[in-house]
């Protein structure tokens, strides 16, 4: 058993600190997160809070660790140091007697129901048709009956505009359709926060629009917080409440879309935006 012991004072959720109580308790809180792959440190200390229903976009050069941030929230990557809280509870750690230890599968399973994720490469299940791709988890994980699960899946597929493709298999769908199925599949689990990991990067340019339109619609519904890791600057500007610019494993700058895109403070962000704009956008 891999036991991680962390200074208790640091690690435990401390809601009583002096900071003025914000309108809502954050749904996600990264505290001092680092991540190393062998010698390479991709995250060098991330502190970030996401409020309930808040849409946060993360931009930055590739290799800046943005994807790793999202994957940690989905429990696909374990932090090397630091803690992540979801809805006020530690995600990767749990209390064992007096110590904080690495969370076991049971704890992760309980915590994961708060989080959903859409992947760059869709990761649909190729051996299931569209309906089953979406209905499988509600049935097996949430324990709904077949009828309930399919009803929920059909209504979600209707929302992403694919109600007529229920019996199709992923191999017969376009990239944009695949990604919309993947969004429906994640949404149907009703997470409190959803990670969108460069969801349009693998799409042909003409298919990007239909996927962004679906995300925009979900964003307008409100309740669910979003962590959008993206290269679509215009889109980030349009739907994000807050934009994070990360580079070299750190959050370099953050603010409203206007602050980030129109009045960048750091040299790093200015040159990033400049390169991005001259890059044929």
């Amino acid at each position, binding site marked *: 058993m891999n036991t991680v012991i962390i200074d208790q004072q640091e690690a435990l959720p401390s809601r009583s600190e002096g900071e003025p109580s914000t309108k809502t308790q954050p749904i996600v809180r990264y505290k001092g997160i680092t991540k190393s792959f062998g010698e390479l440190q991709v995250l060098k200390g991330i502190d970030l809070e996401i409020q309930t229903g808040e849409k946060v976009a993360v931009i930055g050069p590739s290799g800046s660790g943005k994807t790793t941030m999202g994957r940690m929230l989905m429990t696909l990557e374990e932090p090397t140091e630091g803690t992540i809280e979801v809805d006020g509870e530690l995600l990767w750690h749990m209390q064992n007697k007096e110590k904080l230890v690495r969370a076991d599968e049971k704890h992760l399973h309980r915590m994961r129901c708060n989080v959903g994720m859409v992947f760059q490469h869709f*990761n649909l299940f190729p051996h299931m048709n569209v309906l089953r791709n979406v209905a499988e988890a509600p049935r097996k994980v949430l324990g709904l009956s077949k009828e309930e699960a399919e009803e929920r899946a059909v209504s979600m597929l209707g929302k992403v505009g694919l109600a007529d493709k229920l019996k199709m298999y992923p191999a017969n769908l376009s990239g944009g359709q695949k990604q919309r199925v993947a969004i429906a599949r994640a949404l149907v689990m009703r997470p409190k926060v959803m990670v969108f990991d460069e969801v349009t990067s693998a799409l042909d340019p003409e298919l990007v629009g239909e996927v962004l339109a679906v995300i925009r619609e979900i964003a307008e519904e409100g309740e669910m917080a979003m962590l959008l890791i993206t290269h679509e600057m215009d889109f980030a500007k349009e739907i994000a409440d807050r934009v994070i610019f990360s580079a070299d494993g750190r959050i370099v700058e953050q603010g409203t879309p206007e602050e980030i895109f129109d009045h960048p403070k750091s040299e790093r962000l200015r040159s990033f935006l400049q390169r991005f704009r001259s890059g044929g956008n």
Partner: protein
Amino acid sequence: MPNSWIDFLPTLLKGAEITVLVTIFSAILAIAAAFAAGLARLSKLWIIRTLAAVYVEVFRGTSLLVQLFWLYFALPFVGIELPKMLAAISAIGLNFGAYGSEIVRSAVLAVPKGQWEASVALNMKPWQRMFTVILPQATLRMLPPFGNQLVELIKSTSLVYFITMADLTYQAMVLRNNYIAWTTEILVLLLLMYFVIATLISVAVRLLERKLTVGRL
């Protein structure tokens, strides 16, 4: 004296029946052993991984004929007497299971990592990930190599001749002893009968593969 080669058929078919029976039961055992050992080698627990590795190396590293002799002739000395049929099925099944475990293991590893990740993101439990997402896809990858192994297995059943089971090969040898002048005909028939059984298996595996690929390009 036989009038034509047709007269050999009833005897050979009687042998074929044994061959088919041994094939079916040892194939079932082989597949079960292959899945058990293949998945065990991917276990998080080192003890399970080690046990599986020992099984695979022992049964792959020694000859099938010796294993057959061992089960049939040596085990009685330690008080375990297996009937011929059971000894044959165990030896062939465990031997091919050892090879098959590598097919299972590599097919599971060949399922893209994104499939595991998607099943984690949907909060499936580890066994649900394996049985609803990974294995159905891995099984499809296993079919062609499994088909190969199965054909190989049919042909290996002729080794049971050496523990004097009355299989196809055994019957052909008996016929040849009695009608030495017909050796060519008898051996041609023997070839053909193995070929027919092997072909039936190949076709069945291909049909299964087609059925499982439904909807996929």
